[in-house]
């Protein structure tokens, strides 16, 4: 599995397509509705899935762990929403921490971790 993280609009999805030959049609884009296809070639906007999890008392890292066999060879993309100021709102705090914990778990599982910055790739692992 390859993990791509970085800020919003930094070119993560474009990099996944370019570097790992992911076709647009094979990318599952998460929304706030909790739907996810763990067996997709690529899963983008995982931070939207974690927001649904937080709102529905689910642990995203547990859910990913339970489906590990399905995404082991995939490209996973998540925005690093956990770098800013601690939010005042409880839900945003929980979202931020759940996303950070999931990314830490996925980083451990990943063969490679890349952080995007202004369209440039920085190899973290």
């Amino acid at each position, binding site marked *: 599995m390859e993990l791509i993280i*970085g*800020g*919003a609009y930094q070119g993560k999805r474009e990099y996944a397509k370019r570097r790992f030959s992911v076709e647009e049609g094979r990318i599952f884009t998460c929304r706030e509705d909790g739907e996810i296809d763990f067996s997709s070639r690529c899963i983008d906007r995982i931070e939207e899935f974690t927001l649904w999890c937080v709102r529905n008392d689910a642990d995203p890292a547990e859910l990913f762990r339970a489906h590990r066999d399905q995404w082991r060879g995939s490209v996973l993309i998540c925005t690093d929403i956990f770098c*800013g*100021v601690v*939010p005042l709102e409880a839900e*945003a705090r929980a*979202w931020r921490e759940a996303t950070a914990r999931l990314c830490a778990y996925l980083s451990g599982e990943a063969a490679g971790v890349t952080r995007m910055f*202004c369209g440039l790739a920085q190899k973290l692992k």
Partner: protein
Amino acid sequence: MNVLISGGCKNGKSTFARNIALRLAGDGKRYYVATMIPCDDEDRARIARHVADRAGLGFETLELGRKVERCLELADPGATFLVDSVTALLLNEMYPGGHGAGVDPDAVDRCAAGLLKVAAGAGNAVFVSDYIYSDAVRYDSFTEKYRADLAFVDKALANVCDVVIEVCAGNVLVHKGEWEP
């Protein structure tokens, strides 16, 4: 040479950018392209302090809140230009009639084009931007569009700059090219 510097706020970007500009300029002319348009006395006092800070360093200040590429006509284009900041420039370009007036949807393209002209035409250019992309906040659609637009300009600059640097809590990460601190 062109250099893009970004990172979080108040962690040394401007000072670092100034030092890079000084090194690139050597004995040559150096200009500080100030893009912030002051809105109140607090802004004006801050700007006055910054001007005084730079005075001993030989920077001449060009105040260009919009159409930043004019710096190449107002000054010797072969000189070194420090553009601080991309963030303020984009905001000003969004309101060509002044803050509070209507938003110009073409601002992002005009802003990027102007900055790319500076990069192409200047002897050296150092651009300072702000990294505002990694927090857990659901922004209103206007702010979200501003973030997307600033990222577009940042990526366009990163693409043409020889060196791209992130300043993180005073530390320096080189994302593109080489730079010896």
